[in-house]
């Protein structure tokens, strides 16, 4: 297909905190280190003389590791930051997440049941928090990762208060 396609749903207005990039970079570094140790154990631990597919793996695995490191540290955090968007309007909470597959989630304030704010270990290092807006449906959860803590709490309080006011009995 030729023409650059328009997004199926309007892209929300607000970006995440810029610290999110560094958090994702940190995650990429940690992942690379873990895989690196595994690959090193395999490459160094297996004698070179063994047959089968092992000789191929000896150079294939490090190459894969290098590719993973470049993508996870140098490419993915920035793409993710550009893709991730969120917005709270009068009626709805709206988020766009993902990096290759993009997922829009849209929930009306009237159907919100609970709003969670969570802070992981890494998030605490960077002063970030995630907001999850839950509804009666297990699939209808809006997750906004990596907001500044103050913003996250403000949004959660605001949403919880508004949901209380306009909640309809239907689920």
């Amino acid at each position, binding site marked *: 297909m030729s023409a650059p396609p328009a997004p199926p749903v309007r892209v929300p207005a607000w970006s995440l905190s810029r610290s999110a990039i560094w958090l994702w970079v940190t995650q990429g570094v940690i992942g690379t280190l873990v895989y690196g140790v595994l690959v090193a154990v395999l490459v160094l631990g297996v004698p070179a003389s063994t047959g089968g597919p092992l000789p191929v793996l000896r150079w294939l695995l490090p190459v894969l590791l290098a590719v993973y490191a470049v993508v996870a540290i140098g490419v993915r955090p920035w793409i993710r930051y550009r893709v991730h968007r969120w917005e709270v309007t009068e009626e709805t909470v709206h988020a766009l997440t993902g990096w290759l597959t*993009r997922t829009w989630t849209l929930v009306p304030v009237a*159907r919100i049941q609970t709003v969670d704010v969570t802070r992981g270990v890494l998030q605490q290092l960077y002063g970030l928090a995630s907001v999850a807006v839950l509804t009666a449906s297990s699939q*209808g959860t809006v997750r906004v990762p990596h907001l500044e803590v103050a913003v996250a709490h403000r949004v959660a309080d605001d949403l919880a208060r508004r949901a209380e006011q306009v909640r309809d009995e239907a689920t």
Partner: protein
Amino acid sequence: MTTAPWQTVPEVTAPRRTSPLVVLVHTITFRQARQVVPAAIPVVAAVGVDGPGVVVGLVLAVTALSLLFATLTWWRTTYADTPGAVVVTRGLLARSVRTVPNDRIRGVEVETPVLHRLFGLVRVRVDAAAGSMTGGDEEVVVDGLTRAEGDRLRTSVLTHRRAGVVTDPSAPPLPEEQPAEEELARFDPRWLLYAPLVASYLAVPLAAVGALSRLLQELPPGLRPDLTGPDLTDTRVLLTGLLLALLLLALGAVLGAAVVNWGFRLVRRGGSLVAVRGLLTRRHTELEVDRVRGGTLSEGLGMRLVRAARVGALVTGLGAANRRGQVLPLGPRAEAVRLLGVLVDDPGPLVAHPPAARRRRLARAIGSGLAVSAAGGLLVAGTGWWGLLAAGVVLTVLGVPLGLGRYAALGHVAGPRSFAVRSGLLVREQTVLQQRAVVGWQVRQSVFQRRAGLATVVACVGAGTGGYAAIDVAAADVGPFTEAASGSWATARGAGG
């Protein structure tokens, strides 16, 4: 000990015991004694079983133990239905009190297994919605009531619950105890003939055959029936045997369907849909019309050949929805469509998805075949062995009808008060939902979908599986569809632009 922890309730119904007859039922089924079986096995193994005397003694001991456990359980179990909640107290030493507030009760099911029926008893399951966080549902079972007491408990719980829900003083007075019944569907025994074409019913005789052959192998050689295998080289014998096996399979499926669905009846009674079914175990399920959000019409591959279908209701907060939500377990498609119309308005004929969706279905269906073919090609070049290549080609060719079939199943439509999505090849499921069912939308777009101008739209619903997807909708149609299906909030084209 027995006061309910429910202070706001003015009067507390005295806690009751279940019928003493349930002790007999549980003794026979070793209901409580089953728990000690794992502990008993090593003991028995140590003592050793030889001679009929030991066996008889063992059986007597186990039965006595079972009777003891059943009696203790019966003695220590009480239940009470107060105007505010249902309270069940149980536990031999550590007492547990379970209180289910009436506003969390989603339904009451009365079932009658065979043994229970023999003693005139029923089992009542009270279904309660747990918080949305855990997602699970709780269930309180009161086992072994007399039939009259079971009916009393059911109506009592349901009327209490309605009284709790209706707080508006201007609301019309509560309906009478037994409002007029309107029969919506009745099972026609001829519909059982569809059963051999339904995979889940076919599994019943197959499982039975499996169990039987296992049993046959366990038998000591002396007792094993001496079957001389028929001469399989004779095509006539082989064909007859095959035909006979198929016939038995079909018969088993019909029997299985009959046991589950015999005498199925769906009636509307007041604000509830009541479904009754079952040959041996009678099941009595009540669904509240107010909580119905839509329905699913599913047709398996075989069912589509004979235009049969089944219908399930999507009800918020219903546990074991597959079993309990059944509005038509098996029947002609026309009847299924009519019943679906009772649950939710017909949104109109489905809209087919764009040609790009067909290309995508085809690509996905033949993709694995092509990969195998490519590997096979390499193998032919390397070793000259062409088996893998042939398999790959066959897979690729088979993928074409598969992809086309999957595409043909796709469809969506938004009507004035409801909308529908359909997908699935082996089991084609058309889900029709009311507008108010939607608690959110999820739109997914992979890299390939983005290039093809497609997107998958999932309607998030607080009933059934939680989400129902329209796969590969044209990207430009996503906004109009979500808006038409759930209201203006879903356009998401408001402030901020």
